[in-house]
């Protein structure tokens, strides 16, 4: 009986313990910082950690700094543990006022962090990251288990205005179009679903924030559609190429419909012929970028239908002609 009571108490204790420690992710704000820094200048910032409404009990949170690099032409970044000997890595300039804290429901707790320009970084935009995680551990969990850990990154972009060599006189954005083309092996399409690729290089040493513009679709000199370029407000990092994808679609086209749905729509709303897409990146781009790519829309369903009608008519005509010819020949 005593054993049973002990077991029951143990069960209650364990379940109580679990309910006191339900993990909830910690929203982090902001997800990015952008600021300038001169030699020996210090700045302080706040990183807010938010206790969600469904958080019960205290949640321990751990905060640490990583180095960051931009890689690839898409969204990728590389995060790494900074080498303390690399004093030109701005990740080594960052100091946190705490490395861990406890959070409860409704809390908005602030981590204050500061950075001082030690004068050794290159001119232009330099990168680092602050990481928030619920788990500092790197130890393994017993049993045949996969232990899981989450990390939420707040990215830091620092524009170094001066260093030990003096004022940075060569700070610049310099965007250059590498490619504006169709994301397709052919330049003809059977329906208005035309994908575009734009690759823009930033040859400057400053991050080019949110270049904007439009892709205008023209047919016969008439503008028929405008697509926003870079609706996600993505940035182009220094000395990198960024790839952007856009697609022109007819929102009413029955892309998921059957052959006849599409045929009926194409007959009702015919799109046929030579089109031009004109790209203009006219905001947050130095210099402005202009380019044009052309393509065809050939609705094969309509062409097939009319082809069948034409060939059928031709065949009937030939058969009648041949039949008449045979009759005439028979009379002769």
């Amino acid at each position, binding site marked *: 009986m005593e054993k049973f009571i002990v077991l029951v108490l143990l069960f209650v204790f364990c379940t109580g313990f679990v309910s006191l420690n339900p993990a909830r992710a910690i929203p982090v704000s902001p997800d990015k910082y952008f600021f300038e820094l001169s030699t020996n200048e210090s700045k302080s910032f706040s990183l807010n950690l938010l206790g969600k409404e469904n958080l019960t009990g205290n949640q321990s949170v751990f905060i640490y700094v990583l180095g960051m690099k931009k890689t690839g032409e898409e969204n*990728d970044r590389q995060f790494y543990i900074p080498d303390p000997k690399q004093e030109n890595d701005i990740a080594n300039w960052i100091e946190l006022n705490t490395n861990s804290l406890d959070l409860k429901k409704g809390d908005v707790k602030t981590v204050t962090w500061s950075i001082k320009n030690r004068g050794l970084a290159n001119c232009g935009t330099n990168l680092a990251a602050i990481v928030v995680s619920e788990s500092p551990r790197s130890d393994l969990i*017993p049993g045949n*288990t*996969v232990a899981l*850990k989450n990390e939420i990154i707040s990215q830091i972009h620092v524009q170094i205005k001066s260093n030990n060599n003096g004022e940075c006189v060569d700070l610049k954005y310099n965007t250059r179009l590498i490619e*504006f083309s169709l994301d397709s092996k052919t*330049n003809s399409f059977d329906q208005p679903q035309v994908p575009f690729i734009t690759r823009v290089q930033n040859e400057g040493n400053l991050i080019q924030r949110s270049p*904007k513009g439009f892709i205008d679709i023209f047919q016969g000199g008439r503008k028929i559609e405008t697509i*926003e370029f870079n609706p996600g407000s993505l940035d182009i990092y220094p000395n990198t190429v960024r790839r952007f994808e856009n697609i022109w679609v007819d929102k009413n086209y029955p892309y998921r419909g059957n052959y006849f749905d599409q045929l009926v729509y194409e007959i009702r709303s015919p799109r046929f012929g030579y089109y031009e897409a004109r790209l203009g990146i006219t905001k947050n781009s130095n210099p402005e970028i202009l380019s044009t790519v052309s393509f065809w829309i050939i609705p094969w369903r309509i062409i097939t239908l009319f082809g069948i009608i034409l060939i059928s008519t031709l065949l009937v005509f030939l058969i009648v002609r041949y039949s008449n010819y045979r009759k005439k020949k028979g009379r002769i």
Partner: protein
Amino acid sequence: MQSQFSNKTKRLILGILALIAIVSIVLSFNQQTSKAAGITNINISLTNESISAAGVGVTIEFTPNTPITNGSVINIDYDTAFTGGASLTDGDISVTGTNITSSTESSIIAGSFESVLTTSGTVTSTVTVTIDNAPGLTNPSSAGNYQWSISVNIGGTSVNYDNGAGLAYVGDANDVNVTGIIGSTLDLQMYVQDSSTPLVLPYTCNLGALNVGAVSSCSYDIGFSTNSSGGATVKVAADGQLRNGLNNIAACTGTNCNGDGTTGVTAGSAEYGFVISNTGTGCSTTPVAPYGTADQAVPLSSTDFFSNNTLCDGAASGSINKRIEVTHKASINAATVVGTYNQLVTYTIFAN
């Protein structure tokens, strides 16, 4: 008679072949790119880029190709989607630049005006044409790039013309060049598979007791939230193999864990891998190939796992269908060393 009929048929066939040839030639045109030419360094900027904004000032900057001399006439044509142009007067428009003394505006109508320049010498550097914002123009009612054309009649002699065009950007209501903190949030939460219950620390995925006759698996959901319009990316990295001391269960090999000739983790093969078993809906989440295709080795260095390109609130407890489901699978063979095997997998999220 027979010969005539035959010729007609031949002509018909030849006609069809010619038509096919013409269509083929037309279709074989390669993609062409071109760039604007003419006057260089044209820049059109608006004091307000919002749709339908009234009282908008315009600054047109350009560098002449041919040195501008006294009496030159600058003709500006712009899209009549900008309204209010007919109400402008000489006093609302000015032209400035090195050696430009004054300008007189005339022929002011909707979409066009002329400026006659008085200069003290040739003008070779940046010329700035300014339309004041009072009364200014009213922006077009739809977003887009709107063309502004510049023609310079050098000396007003109608002999030499420089031409060019630039685009004005209309359509961004938020035109603040942000240099401070952006108030955005980012969140990553792991949940019990198909459930509103978050995983409990320490987060685990338990493969259970492995045996040679079956594939053991465990699954969990990853929810993420971002209010960044560019979306977010999640990377994944393992601290090592699924291991017991020095003994590993071999990570998947081959394109789709088909190193043993069978796609995916297979019973009796001693293989370990993971896969995005469900991408969810509503957050436009895309697995990075090949993690959404079939079982793969868990990467030992931080590698892109999935991303999206829009807003998402998948970390909220009720957003079950917006989450990514990940499944780990392991199998053993008769030679797998007895013991408990484990691994640490870290997911890292950042805004795009």
